[in-house]
Structures are given as structure tokens and as C-alpha cells.
């Protein structure tokens, strides 16, 4: 079993962070993982993305041209990666920032208003957590508990942030599970 995902967004949206958290949680769960950021000339253009692979066995290629899932946090990311998703895969859209309708019909499309939810939870910076939760809910790539433990560990020095992020994560998770029904 392998889960792989490209997470993409603006520089400040924290996609590299949730990618790393996903990889970490996978590792904690005893899986093989890899995390690969895009680097290159476009780096400074303001968009960022990373590829995470979580697998039961040695990770083959850490570069995934046709990922099983894409998490698009903004419009340019949707436009860049939509076409690459494996047929039958998952396209998770941050509908707070993306108004455009995706064109793909052969993938499962999950719209999550991540920023709106984060704002509702008084955690405006937590949109990435919502998206991460939704991704987990939709794929069960790693267990929610594992991720919650990681959040506690990561933000250990800021208890408020821990709680806010766990709330965001859980809300996302629910939406993710629901969406896949």
C-alpha cells in the first residue's frame, strides 16, 4: 500500500509544513516515507509544493509525476497539478480561495473551505491544518491520533496553538471522511 500526495499553495500557506508533518506521522507509524520539496528557479515566485510518499515498503521513486492525491491550496496550484492526478485519485481543493471548477471527472474531487473553517475556529493560520485533516479523513494515510500526537509534540511550547490546530485538524478530518462517503 502506498499513499502519495502533492501539496501545493502560496509560500506562506504552510504546505511544506503539513507535508513534513504527514511524513513524520507516517514514519512514527512505522511506514517508509519521503518528503520532497520543489526547488528550482520558480522557488522565489511565491508558490511552493512538496511531494510526500507513505508506503508499506521501501519508497521507490520519491518523485511522483502522477500522484494519487493533490491538495491544492490556491488557484495556481490547482492549475498546475490537476491534470497530473492518477485516474481514480483524489483532488482536494481549498474552496475558500479557489472559485474555479475543476475539469477532471475521473478523480474524486473534495472541496474544503479551509480558510473559512479556520477563520470560524478563530485560527486563521490553521487553514493548512484543516486541509491536512481533510486529506487524512479522505485517505486514512496515517491515523488521526498519530497526527494529533505529532501536533502536540510540534507545538509543545504553545498549548493554545496545539488546541487550535487539533480542532482544525479534526474538523478537516470529519469533512474528509464525509466527503468520501
Amino acid at each position, binding site marked *: 500500500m502506498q499513499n502519495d500526495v502533492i501539496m501545493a499553495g502560496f509560500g506562506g500557506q504552510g504546505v511544506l509544513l503539513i507535508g513534513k508533518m504527514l511524513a513524520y506521522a507516517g514514519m512514527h507509524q512505522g511506514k517508509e516515507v519521503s518528503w520532497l520539496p520543489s*526547488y528550482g528557479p520558480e522557488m522565489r515566485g511565491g508558490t511552493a509544493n512538496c511531494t510526500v510518499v507513505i508506503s508499506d515498503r521501501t519508497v521507490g521513486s520519491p518523485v511522483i509525476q502522477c500522484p494519487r492525491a493533490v491538495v491544492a491550496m490556491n488557484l495556481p496550484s490547482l492549475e498546475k497539478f490537476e491534470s497530473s492526478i492518477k485516474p481514480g485519485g483524489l483532488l482536494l481543493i481549498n474552496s475558500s480561495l479557489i472559485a474555479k471548477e475543476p475539469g477532471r471527472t475521473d478523480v474524486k474531487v473534495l472541496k474544503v473551505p479551509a480558510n473559512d473553517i479556520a477563520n470560524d475556529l478563530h485560527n486563521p493560520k490553521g487553514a493548512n491544518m484543516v486541509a491536512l485533516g481533510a486529506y487524512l479523513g479522505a485517505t486514512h494515510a496515517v491515523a488521526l491520533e498519530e497526527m494529533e500526537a505529532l501536533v502536540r509534540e510540534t507545538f509543545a511550547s504553545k498549548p493554545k496553538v496545539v488546541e487550535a490546530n487539533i480542532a482544525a485538524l479534526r474538523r478537516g478530518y470529519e469533512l474528509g471522511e464525509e466527503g468520501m462517503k
Partner: protein
Amino acid sequence: MAKKLMKGSEAIGEAAVRANCKLFFGYPITPQNEIPEYMSHRLPQVGGTFVQAESEVAASNMIYGAAGTGERVFTSSSSPGISLMAEGISYLAGSELPVVLVNIMRAGPGLGGILPSQADYFQATKGGGHGDYRLLVLAPWSVQEAADLVQDAFDLADFYRNPVMILGDGLIGQMMEPVEFKENRVPCKPLKPKDWAATGCKGDRPTNIINSLFLDPQVLEYHNQKLKAKYDTMSRDEVRFTEYGTGDDYDLLIVAYGTVARVCSTAIEDLREDGIKAAMVRPISLFPFPYEAVRRAAKKAKAVLVVELSCGQMIEDVQLALEGSRPVHFYGRQGGMLASPEEVAQKAKEVLAGTSQEVRHA
């Protein structure tokens, strides 16, 4: 130590520190800036020294000086920077100094681009500098392997008194993967005191001289032959490779190294799902090249496919191994473009279907 998710660049730096290397001299260049950056904050913590050299030319000579004292030292760079070290590397090899050189390859030639490439294979294995010399060249395919090979590299360098190069690509440098550093690691080679080092000639010992100049051609010829004998010993004792699926039957043998070999391993699985049987030999030591292993593994196959992120360089070593006994095919991407498992699988199918053209030297 527990597993930690680490960037390849940082794992390489940390591995050096754990191999008791307290000295780094280097110059920034993408995509390996994380290595000097890591060393600049890490070395002072362990009482070591980080020096940002004024250039790669200077860096290659600083490590020459440092290695000449018998201390462990390393530098890292990327393709154009390694070219600037060509003279220095030839001196290091000629003077038999143990250093570790890391080349996180980017696409060339010239300024090229900053994305991954494997186009420095020739430079690394056949000698970018002048004269007859060889580097021991090790090519990791994962962050963990990078960390392991870097530690081995220091032992090998000391054992052979020879520069050892870690040849990675931008993916190795940028990727994060779990890494575990073993406590109380045992050197991979028995290590002797460095009584040849130039550290001040106490008492009556004759002076120690770090040198590659031999004006008498007969003496230089002896020196060349001594070096050659050393390289021959390496060729006998230091061949490293892994095999993938060679226990089963297969029609196609893939030969690939570094991260692109991971792509090939995925391709092999995909091919098996399609009922096509392929296996792989992955050279880990590029010099010495696993000629024998490739030759042996090719026996079971109808054809051999070499996959590289270059226009075809390692393929010559594969051809030297096979001596025409199997048709050799090539799939390469260049310029920072990466080969995908799908492309490799497609090429594999073409090879077996007879629609791919064999590579020969006309």
C-alpha cells in the same frame, strides 16, 4: 539513535560530524547550500571549524592542507564548483590525501540549471583532472544511504589515502527521509595511525612531505605504478552494488544508480504487474564499477537497459562489462528533467518488443 526525518544535505553534514570530521571548507552553490549552512552552525557545537572559502579552487586547496595534517575534512559542491576543483582533486589524489568530496550534481554543461542530473559520471569516475588517478566514487540512492556512505567514505579515504567522492543529485540533497545514526559505529576499514602527516617533525623523525611533484620521470613512474596498484586493490575490494529482483527470472536487466534507480525499481514493479519480467543491478560504487556483477546478472537477460539522467555516460562501463554479449539500450533524461517510472517501463517494453535501438559505438 531514533529515526529522524532529515534533508539529505543535512544528513550528509551530520554523518560527517559523526564520522568525527571536524573541518569543513566550502563555497556556496545550489543545490547543496544546505550542507555548508548546516556545517556552519553544527561544527562550532562540536569544537570544529567551518570556513567559507573564497572559491571552490581555494576550498579544494584548504582541504588539501587540512588533510595533510591527518585530520578528517570534507567539502561539498555541485557540478561547476567541482570542475573548479579539478586541479585540486588531481593534486589530492597525486599526494594521496584522504578527503571526502561531495558532489550534488546539477544539470550542465556550463551554468546549466540547478535541477538534478547525473551528467558528471565521467568527470567523477574517469578523472576530471589531469593525469592517471582515480577517486573512489559512491552514489547513494536514499538519504539513509547517503548518511551511511558518508561515514564509510571517511574510513575508505583514510584506509586508502585517497579522495572519496559522494556523487548525489539534487534529489538526494533536497529530499527528507527517515535517517538513523548508529551509536558506536565501527569503522568499515581498519585504521592505522597517520604517521605520514605533516604536523611538525618532532625530534629526529625525517620531515614529512605532502607532495605530488616528482621531477625524475623514473620516480614518477614508480609513483604512478604505486597509485595504479592501489586503484587495482580498490577494484578488487571495494565494489559495492545491490541487486533488485535478480533472484527471479527476467528478460530485461536494468542498470541504474542513485535516485533514478529508485524510479527504476518502481518501474520494475509496474512492469511485473504487466507481466514483464525485469531486474536491476544498482552500482553503489561507480569507481570501482561492478563490472562482474553486471556481466553476471546480464546472463539471464535478453537485453540490458541503462537509465541515466545524462546523455549516456555509465553506459560505457556497462558496455565494457558486457563486451557485446548482450544488446545495450539507453534511456536518459537531461537538463534537470526526471525520468518517471512510466517512461522507464515504456522504454523497457520497447526494448523487449525490439522497437528500441541498441547503442553501439560506430
